[in-house]
């Protein structure tokens, strides 16, 4: 089919005005946050229902047209990128909360519901949706589930996967499946729900999801501690976890904090300058918990792990202390950072981090390295900043080399080349560092079952041969 024919047919399938093919929209909807690939889709379509998605998939199979699911396009792995004449299927008009059951504490949403909209809906009903990260104002539930997004509260609440009671999907073959029927307990063979979560749109579309909600957290209180050394991140974590259930444990380097401070008017937590900082959050539900936190802090001071620290005295202060961590991404953005999102088991973090740091600084002493991340769950964000006087091409070329070294270390430590951002196009070449060939062969087999004609997000995560 010619692009013109595809567009005409699509217009017959969907409501008027829900098919776009002007250059501006093709460019806009053809890419995600990464902006490294030139977008080149033939059309963008906006279905309004599961039935319309099904009709699109049937059409795509019949005419062998490739489809790219598109959510909020905040993805960091080029999963929602269309470079090759695909039809982009955007969920912007499937943004309704369809049902809410207070007694089950579940909410049934269309896939295009914005993450923040779900959080707000929960809050309006005195409940809580705990998955949270800096892009929550734009990302969609369908995108969150397709990348199994993590974020800043994983240490306590787990990943997006842990909050799914049921899914409605349209498989690459065009079947509509209602997976898990919103049941808490349902041991009836393979749980297909979990195959679609994290599949990055390669098996089919997620069109609706029933999400679990929980009680609202009580009196969230933030500590920011200045650490003497990297290994102290683990000492402090273990000390606090013995007595307090943390809702977050983040870390960042002094360099990261300096960028945040120069970028915006964010106040330093204290005057003492520490090489690394840890941010802890917990529910201060009683005076006892507060007293425990104080005692634990004293222990950390006495052991020489911690140089100084502050505790939020109000929600405003808690919010402001979080800015030290949450604003890192945006404050280094002007320096064209090269980002890696890697993980190892928690206990190996300090050794792992030091080894990578040594390799990069040894080979590229001019590169500025910014470390931060969800260290409480073994997830580190390695950001390399482009030296001002180096060209973009030269820089990214050198970073490819860095990648190889970094991922060899990841492999040696039994870690992951993508902790929470998915694989998409950007990590595809490195998948084997985390998943051996025989495992990838099973992934291909699964893909073949759900999407025999290979119309769903082709070329993402792995190639077919």
């Amino acid at each position, binding site marked *: 089919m010619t692009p013109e024919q595809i567009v005409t047919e699509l217009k017959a399938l969907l409501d008027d005005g829900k098919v776009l093919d002007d250059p501006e929209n093709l460019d806009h909807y053809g890419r995600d946050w990464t902006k490294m690939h030139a977008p080149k889709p033939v059309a963008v379509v906006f279905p309004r229902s599961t039935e319309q998605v099904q009709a699109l998939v049937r059409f795509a199979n019949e005419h062998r047209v490739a489809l790219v699911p598109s959510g909020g396009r905040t993805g960091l792995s080029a999963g929602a990128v269309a470079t090759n004449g695909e039809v982009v299927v955007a969920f912007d008009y499937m943004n309704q909360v369809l049902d809410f059951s207070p007694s089950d504490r579940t909410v049934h949403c269309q896939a295009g519901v914005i993450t923040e909209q779900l959080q707000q809906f929960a809050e309006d009903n005195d409940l809580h949706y705990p998955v949270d990260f800096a892009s929550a104002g734009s990302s969609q539930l369908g995108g969150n589930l397709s990348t199994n997004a993590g974020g800043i509260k994983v240490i306590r609440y787990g990943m997006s996967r842990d909050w799914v009671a049921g899914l409605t999907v349209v498989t690459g073959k065009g079947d509509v499946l209602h997976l898990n029927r919103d049941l808490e307990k349902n041991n009836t063979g393979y749980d297909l729900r979990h195959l679609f979560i994290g599949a990055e749109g390669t098996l089919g579309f997620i069109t609706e999801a029933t999400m679990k909600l929980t009680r609202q957290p009580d009196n969230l209180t933030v500590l920011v501690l200045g650490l003497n050394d990297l290994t102290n991140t683990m000492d402090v974590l273990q000390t606090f976890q013995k007595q307090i259930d943390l809702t977050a444990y983040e870390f960042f380097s002094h360099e990261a904090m300096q960028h945040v401070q120069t970028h915006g008017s964010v106040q330093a937590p204290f005057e003492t300058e520490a090489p690394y900082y840890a941010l802890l959050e917990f529910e201060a539900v009683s005076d006892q918990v507060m007293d425990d936190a*104080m005692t634990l802090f004293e222990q950390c001071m006495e052991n020489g792990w911690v140089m100084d620290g*502050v505790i939020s005295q109000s929600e405003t202060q808690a919010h402001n202390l979080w800015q030290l961590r949450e604003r890192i991404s945006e404050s280094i953005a002007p320096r064209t950072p090269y980002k890696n999102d890697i993980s190892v088991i928690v206990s190996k973090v300090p050794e792992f981090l030091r080894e990578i740091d040594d390799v990069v600084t040894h080979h590229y002493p001019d590169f500025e390295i910014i470390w931060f991340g969800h260290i409480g769950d073994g997830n580190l964000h390695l950001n390399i900043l482009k030296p001002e006087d180096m060209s973009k091409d030269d820089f990214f070329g050198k970073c490819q080399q860095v990648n190889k070294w970094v991922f060899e270390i990841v492999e040696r430590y039994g870690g992951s080349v993508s902790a929470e951002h998915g694989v998409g196009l950007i990590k595809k070449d490195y998948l084997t560092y985390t998943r051996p060939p025989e495992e990838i062969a099973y992934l291909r087999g699964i893909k073949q079952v759900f999407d025999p004609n290979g119309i769903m997000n082709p070329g993402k995560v792995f190639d077919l041969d």
Partner: protein
Amino acid sequence: MKVLVAVKRVIDYNVKVRVKPDNTGVDLANVKMAMNPFCEIAVEEAVRLKEKGIASEIVVVSIGPKASQEQIRTALALGADRGIHVETDEEVQSLEAAKLLKGVVEKEEPKMVIMGKQSIDTDNNQTGQMLAALMGWGQGTFASEVAVDGEKVNVTREVDGGLMTVGLKLPAVVTTDLRLNEPRYASLPNIMKAKKKPLESVAPADLGVEVAPRLSTLKVEAPKQREAGVKVEDVAELVDKLKNEAKVI
């Protein structure tokens, strides 16, 4: 010189308040409380005066229920030297607060009283002015800069359309505005040290004041909910609605 700082325990600035169903006030049950933001600025200013060697002692006072001691402890952690808690479970309105503060001032004889320009719960903006009047002292309100010069203090005030600087003879009352300074965080080591700083508790009667509200609240209402908008299908419908429903064109 000795500086007295007044701090108030109020609903945390970040909390979305809910009006009680019977419209008698806002729901305080299980709501996070914190130091009034303008009082935080007052404490910070006093601590800076002490760091500059101008203030020799900072006494912090709070009027309210037992739990107000948390806010006094916070101020002590920020650098105040000792605390006075005027304990009462009654509702304290501006005039009573000013009279109670006058009692404390007469006992402590500070050279300067620094307090917030208003508290974010009742937004009255009058306690500082009332205290100055009761004491017969000068007042520098809405301060965005405080410069002590011997027995005088110059207070730069934020007024409509500009700044005004007043020179006051000490002792005087200064009330803080938002841009006076950026308060620091209380550090954990200082919070621990603050636990050992002296905190004295007194009753309103000890200061010769009877706390009894003079004003009664008739009704508290939440702001009007904004109505959801509607989507129109096309320009023609929009024009039609503007013409015939909104009658603006």
